[in-house]
């Protein structure tokens, strides 16, 4: 394996354009965004969508409903703070939005950040009912990011 590591060191050094050269002090800097123009860390899904469009405010919702599907998103192996969220499809039963907007006509797509999921024991279960406090993603009335989830 040592030869492979040395080969890789040479190869990656040759392809290296910045300060993250292997062999040196490894700066665990975020990978550039596509196009390579940004080094801004990715926001966690906990805040994704909250800023939304310029000038828009996230709309808070309180609802109950049953989980139709639950999908776990993998954590990133190099940046463990990225990913690891769950995505639920929730059939809304009761709906109360701060802007008094109506409930979505299709199942609510609920992004549950990892820290919210980790507070749930057990993990989200299809078919179970939950009480949800969330914020709608700007421009997407059928998508929300969960602030809190309570199994009913």
């Amino acid at each position, binding site marked *: 394996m040592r030869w492979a590591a040395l080969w890789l060191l040479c190869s990656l050094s040759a392809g290296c354009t910045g300060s993250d050269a292997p062999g040196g002090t490894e700066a665990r800097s975020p*990978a550039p965004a*596509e196009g390579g123009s940004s080094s801004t860390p990715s926001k966690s899904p906990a805040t994704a969508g909250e800023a939304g469009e310029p000038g828009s405010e996230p709309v808070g919702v309180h609802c109950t409903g049953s989980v139709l599907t639950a999908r776990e998103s993998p954590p990133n192996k*190099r940046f463990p703070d*990225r990913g690891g969220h769950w995505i639920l499809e929730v059939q809304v039963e009761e709906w109360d939005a701060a802007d008094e907007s109506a409930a979505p006509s299709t199942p609510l797509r609920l992004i549950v950040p990892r820290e919210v999921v980790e507070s749930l024991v057990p993990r989200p279960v299809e078919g179970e009912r939950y009480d949800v406090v969330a914020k709608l993603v700007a421009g997407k009335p059928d*998508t929300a990011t969960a602030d809190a989830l309570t199994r009913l």
Partner: protein
Amino acid sequence: MPSQSTRREADTSSPASTTSTTTDERFEQARGNGAAAADLSTSPENGLDGALGMAAGTPAKLHVYVDLEAQEISMWNPREAKKNLERGAVGHTWIALEYPDVSQIPDTVHPKHAGYLRQGGKYADSMGFWPGDEGYSTNPLNSYVSGRVKQPDTSHQGREKASQSYDLTHEEVGKVIDYAESKRGAKYSVYGYNCTSFAKESVEAAGKSAPSMSTLGIAMPNAAYEGIKKQQANGTEGTMVDDLDGLDFDALYEERYGNTAGQNPDADPTTQQREDAGHVKRT
């Protein structure tokens, strides 16, 4: 080679053929006598399973699953490899043990695995090897970090782009479990010992022949995908391969890890959706 038959002609001298003993007792005996393990299939009560096509001597399955997050991570293309390694777009290879007939699960199975196995299904006792909380290091000269066997390993479940399945005896299940348990405290290196190394060595621990899963000595999910694809092309049974046509891996990465994570499900379709769209071939 998957689906290797381990059935043998009846051996009346084997403890396994003693009809007065229970399956569990015979499993215990078999654990201490490798030759006897395969002979479990010769017991009268297993005859129906054999007649139904379920290899009675191989009541379990080992599945190897591969999910990809980049079109290519080839050490022959260092720039692309560097980009994907640095952003953590390496994909995942993991395994799962399954008893299609959960009544065949011996009581002697390892307690950390029994509950998962009894849940049933092709992802029943899923396990994968992951870096610890600090994430992996890309420094080839200092790549080892803390590692852990994740069980159940459901993070990439239902997103696999390739899989290969093997029929196992009880004894072979025990060997896979023993191997996995031995790696709970192992160190992780994205170059030296990673998820794909764990999966490949699990297959080998069962005494099976794993497909090629590495390039230039470095195991990677993309190489495992290519290895399974070659197995399928060679007519090996028990394989599943997604043709990857139409997949946008940058969009998939953004959906999983980016600023809009979770908001574009079409970018990260399920294996079932891909199969429904005609992108998956099984043997």
